[in-house]
């Protein structure tokens, strides 16, 4: 991709990368300027999680956010536009290792969705976050890519798309 996406020294924002590692794997990475315990906390406490999961620019909101972060515990996120529900995503946590690892299922799809593994690796006060999605089949990931239903959030990406259009090619081009 182009240089425009590199970490921006003026804003202090770190670079987010996305890579298709294999036929069934999609990997997102990002570094945060904080210790792992803090980044982990933001992923595992609903009151914190709901403050950042839906970027404000997208016009959607989290109507509810239930997270029982322990092995076997369930989560359910309900998304809405203007107070009415448009979609929900849910699943359960299958591994919870505080401050270093979270694994959960994504069950809203028809034939079982991806398994998401998050790792938090602390290095010199910074935390490297790696989000790894393993799809049940090559077709499942291809379908995800082809449909634009990234992360089971078609509406969100629609809005992202509109958002990018309104930026008028000034971004990432």
């Amino acid at each position, binding site marked *: *991709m182009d240089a425009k*996406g590199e970490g921006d020294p003026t804003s202090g*924002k*770190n670079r*987010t*990368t*996305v890579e*298709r590692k*294999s*036929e069934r794997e999609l990997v*997102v990475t*990002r570094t*945060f*300027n*904080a210790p792992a315990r*803090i*980044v982990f*906390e*933001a992923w595992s406490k609903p009151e*914190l999680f709901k*403050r*950042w*999961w*839906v*970027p*404000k*620019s*997208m016009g959607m909101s989290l109507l509810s956010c239930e997270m029982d972060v322990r092995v076997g515990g369930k989560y359910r996120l309900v998304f809405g536009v203007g107070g009415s529900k448009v979609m929900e995503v849910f699943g359960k946590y299958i591994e919870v290792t505080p401050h270093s690892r979270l694994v959960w299922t994504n069950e809203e799809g028809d034939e079982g969705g991806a398994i998401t593994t998050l790792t938090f690796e602390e290095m010199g006060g910074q935390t490297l976050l790696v*989000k790894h999605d393993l799809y049940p089949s*090559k*077709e499942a990931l*291809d*379908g995800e*890519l*082809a*449909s*634009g239903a*990234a*992360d089971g*959030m*078609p509406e*969100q*990406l*629609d809005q*992202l*798309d509109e958002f*990018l259009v309104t930026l008028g090619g000034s*971004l*990432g081009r």
Partner: protein
Amino acid sequence: MVQYPTARLDASFAALSDATRRGVLEQLGRADASITDLAEKFHMTLTGMKKHVSVLEQAGLVTTEKVGRVRTCKLGPRRLAEETAWIEAYRQLWASRFDELDKVVEELKQKEKADGRKRRG
């Protein structure tokens, strides 16, 4: 979101699932090459390289042209535009999400610092 033709994406991602084929694309990004050049560069038989190139060709990532006895390969006209666009949109989603997360994280850091001061004080 633009709807991408599924069959084409299937073909191109399948083509990209092989390290040699990705290497061939990188190579062709630098300069056109004959199948013989490519076979040599990747330490492969001519037949093996022909197969790889044909997978890339079917996915529309590479075009070939026979001039005399030499088949020259070059990048296809569409390159990886659609795949790159999808990945870029997905990256933007996560980048904006993580920028918001930065704010939450910064707040937690400040709070931790303040709590630490209180405990010591």
